[in-house]
Structures are given as C-alpha cells and as structure tokens.
C-alpha cells in the first residue's frame, strides 16, 4: 500500500465521513475478529454502515485458523433515568395540547407497538416524520400524518398550536421544522432518544429522556392526561383537510393511483421509492401500517435508492409483494439493476412515474426561480416499456386516469416482475408545500386539481 499501485485508493479515508466506522486490516490473523466486531458495531446502538477494507495480499494469505473470538457484549441502550421520566410525565400531565412528534428511531428501536399503546392510553395525537410513517396506522384517529415541508395541513398546524412536543426519536431535521425558531413556537419540549448527540443538537429540550425507547414510552403511558378537547380539535382539523382524490381531467392522478395501489397491495406489501415528487406522493398517500414496509431515502435524499432497496426487500421477503415507485429521473440512476431482478427471478413490481422532468427541481424552479428551468427537462427519456422488454421483463404503459384501476389489477395479478410506465402530468406539483425558510403554518396549500 502507499505506492499508487493499480486501482489503489484509500478506501478507509474515502468512506470515513459517511460510515459509522471503518477498518483497514493488515494482519490476516485479525480478519475474523474485525469482521465480527464490525457486524456487531453496525447493528448495535444507532445502526450504521461499517466498512472493512481488506487488501488483496491479506485476502490471499493463509492463516492457521481464526483466532479465538473475543467476548463481545452488546448490552444495548440503557434504561431511562427515573428522575427524567418523572419530570417528563409531570409535564405531559400538565399539558393542555400535547403532541407526539415521532421519528425514524421508532422503527430502529422496534417501538411501533409501544408508541401505539402510548397513544391509545394517553389520547395524545401524533405527527410522524417520513421515516416514522406506518408507526401508527394511516387511519388511526390520533395519527395526523406526516409533518414538515410536504406534510399534511392538520399535522403542521397541530405542531404550531401544541403546548408540549413529545419528541420520540426524531432529530428536528430541517425538512421537518422549516424555520427552526418558529417551529412549535409555544411548546415545551420533552425529547426521548437513545443517542445523546441528538439531544439539543437543533433545539434544546426542557427534559431529555435518554435510554431505551420502549421502556420510556411504556413508563410515560401511565401518565394521566387531560387532552380530549385538543384531540377532538386535531381530529376535526384532520377531517376538514383530508385529501379529496377528485382531481378533474383525463390524466393519471398519481396520489390517487398510489393510494389505490397501496390498498390493493395490502398492509404487508413493501414499498420502496426513489427521491423526488413521487417519493412525497408515496409518503402522503400510501396507506402504511408498519414503518419497516416503507423504504425511503430520507435525510440523504439519494436518487437511485428505490430499485436496489426493493431488490433487497424482495430477497428478504420473497413471498411478500414488493413495489418500487420511481420517478423517470431517479430510475435512470440504477436502471441496470433490472438485470439483477431478472437474474434472480425477483417478482418485484416497478412503477415509473414519468413526467419527463426532474419534477421536484422543476417545481422549485417554477415557484422560486420564476420558471427559469435549468437542466430539468427529461423529454429525451428512453421508452421505459421497451427498456424493460430489453431486459426480458413484461411491461405496459398507463396514460389516462380511467386506466388506473385496471393497471393496478394487472400489475398485482401478473406473476413475476413487471414494469409499469405511468405518464403523469408534467406540470403537477406536490402540495402542500412549506417554502424554504418559512414556518410550517405558512405552507402553500394550492389544490392538487389546479396544479
């Protein structure tokens, strides 16, 4: 190493900023220990990728056998401090308008049921981040839906009106908070998390409860709350601002298509998406019942994520319906993976929502840059149905709203993989929309039918 040999790069240094940890193994006898430690590290605490760089000479070296494995103990996150729980419970009991703001840590901690029990017992309404969708059933009366930049009206208004924000393993992401200083401006904050680095990173809590999430939620579920009037107010707001799904016109209406497909596919189906408008439509309209069935690149926002994620899900759950929802821009970033789908006979269904634009970027350029469109025109896309056929995958195209239900039936009843090429309105935008730098209650609520 260090001689600039053929294909030599410093993998350890290259990956350092984007992984949880990295190893470079130079002693062949260390390989077993390092692999074992790396796997434990990747899956423990707050999970994350771990890189192990094994040079070629180490790969080819002969060793007597693996060294005795060291005793590795992963005690997991500790229990929450009783004093912190008491203070949090007291604040919850005193609140008139408490609100749960649940994040992706609910999924990581396997705390879905604990969150449901907490909400059912305390009658505290909840808003969910992109990564927490499914932690509560989509139709649960306390579930006000996703908050943030493309969050639901009722969810964002509840955040702005609440007097206590119970943060459940969320991280005050900028796409969630909008203008940070004006996010939940009247609320005290109780923050439950397993990661001390998240507490106070973006907003200082009044009480922090560090420790295992299920234990924290179970303890706080014993709190006697008094917020029925607030719950009724939130439920009325949710009903008043619910989606209509009645867009006029002959074109495919993507929100309706995705909602109907999710119902037809069932709660066990896994949906994976790329990044962009279609991702937000999935988040808003797919009827989720489990956060593990929703694979979406959140904070990183990595276009190209959807198809490989769906492939992984189909390997993990070969009997489960897996749907990849991609945009025409995103799907081109990893469309070669259709070869993997064919090679392994994976029965996943790929939907390409094609508006012949990088739609989300176009939307921003329309709304904030006076329609001075730059590098978003994808009208020279390939014919996706023919691309699929070239890989040996059946495909068909949907171009009108009255074809939606037939397409869903055909998609789900076709054995093996299918690619569905869906032509959607090139000018359609994702609503509602909190403009960058605005507070969440300042969202643009233009009706989808007028987009």
């Amino acid at each position: 190493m260090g001689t600039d040999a053929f294909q030599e790069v410093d993998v350890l240094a290259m990956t350092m900023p984007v992984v949880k940890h990295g190893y470079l193994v130079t002693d062949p006898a260390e390989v077993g220990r390092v692999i074992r430690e790396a796997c434990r590290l990747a899956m423990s605490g707050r999970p994350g990728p771990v890189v192990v760089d094994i040079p070629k000479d180490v790969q080819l070296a002969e060793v007597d056998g693996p060294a005795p494995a060291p005793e590795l103990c992963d005690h997991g996150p500790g229990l929450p401090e009783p004093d912190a729980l008491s203070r949090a419970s007291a604040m919850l009991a005193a609140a008139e308008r408490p609100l749960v703001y649940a994040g992706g840590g609910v999924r990581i901690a396997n705390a879905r049921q604990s969150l449901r029990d907490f909400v059912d017992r305390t009658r505290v309404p909840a808003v969910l981040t992109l990564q927490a969708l499914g932690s509560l059933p989509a139709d649960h009366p306390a579930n006000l839906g996703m908050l943030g930049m493309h969050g639901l009206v009722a969810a964002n208004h509840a955040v702005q009106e609440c007097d206590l924000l119970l943060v459940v393993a969320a991280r005050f992401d900028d796409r969630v908070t909008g203008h940070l200083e004006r996010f939940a401006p009247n609320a005290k904050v109780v923050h439950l998390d397993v990661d001390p680095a998240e507490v106070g990173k973006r907003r200082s809590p009044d009480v922090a409860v560090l420790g295992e999430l299920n234990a924290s939620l179970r303890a706080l579920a014993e709190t006697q709350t008094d917020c029925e009037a607030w719950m009724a107010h939130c439920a009325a707001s949710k009903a008043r601002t619910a989606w209509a799904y009645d867009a006029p016109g002959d074109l495919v209406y993507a929100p309706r298509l995705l909602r109907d497909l999710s119902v037809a596919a069932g709660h066990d189906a896994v949906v994976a998406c790329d990044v962009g408008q279609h991702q937000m439509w999935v988040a808003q309209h797919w009827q989720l019942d489990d956060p593990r069935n929703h694979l979406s690149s959140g904070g990183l926002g990595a276009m190209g994520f959807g198809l490989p994620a769906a492939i992984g899900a189909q390997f993990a759950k070969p009997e489960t319906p897996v749907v990849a929802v991609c945009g025409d821009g995103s799907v081109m970033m990893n469309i070669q993976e259709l070869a993997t789908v064919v090679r392994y006979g994976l029965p996943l269904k790929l939907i390409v929502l094609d508006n012949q634009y990088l739609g989300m970027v176009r939307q921003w350029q329309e709304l904030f840059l006076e329609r001075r469109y730059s590098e978003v025109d994808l009208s020279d896309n390939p014919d996706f149905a023919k691309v699929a056929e070239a890989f040996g995958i059946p495909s068909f195209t949907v171009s009108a709203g009255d074809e939606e239900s037939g397409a869903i039936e055909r998609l789900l009843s076709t054995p093996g993989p299918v690619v569905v090429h869906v032509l959607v309105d090139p000018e359609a935008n994702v609503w509602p929309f909190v403009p960058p730098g605005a507070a969440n209650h300042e969202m643009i609520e233009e009706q989808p039918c007028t987009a």
Partner: protein
Amino acid sequence: MYRMKLELSAVRGALVRLLGVAERRGFEPTSVVCTTIDATMRVEMTVNGRVDVGLLVRQLLKLHDVRTVEVCS
C-alpha cells in the same frame, strides 16, 4: 476557544476521524498534540468554535475509537 483532552484507541484512522468530526461540526482545531503508548493514544487539542462545545463532545463520544473526552477550559 476550548482545550480538550481525549483518550483514543491507537488504531489506524482514529486521529483523522477525530479531526474530521471536529471540523465537520463547526470547530477549528488550532493545536493538536498526540502521544501514543501501546494501544492508547492521548490527544490534547485546542479548538475554536461558536457553538456549544457540548455538541462536539457528544459527537466525538459516538466515535468507536474515542474512549474519553474532557473539556479543560
């Protein structure tokens, strides 16, 4: 300006990871003294930063190689 003392596992990449996190989180290392004895690396580091140093401490403690972090002044 904050003066910090840290104890790390003396493994490849540990010091680079430490400095990378400090810079990424908005702190400028202005002096670094590193001494390694056997499997332990002791680092005395001075950083400039305009945000709460506690945020940096909590981020550094997430690094697998970092055993202890002490803010001296």
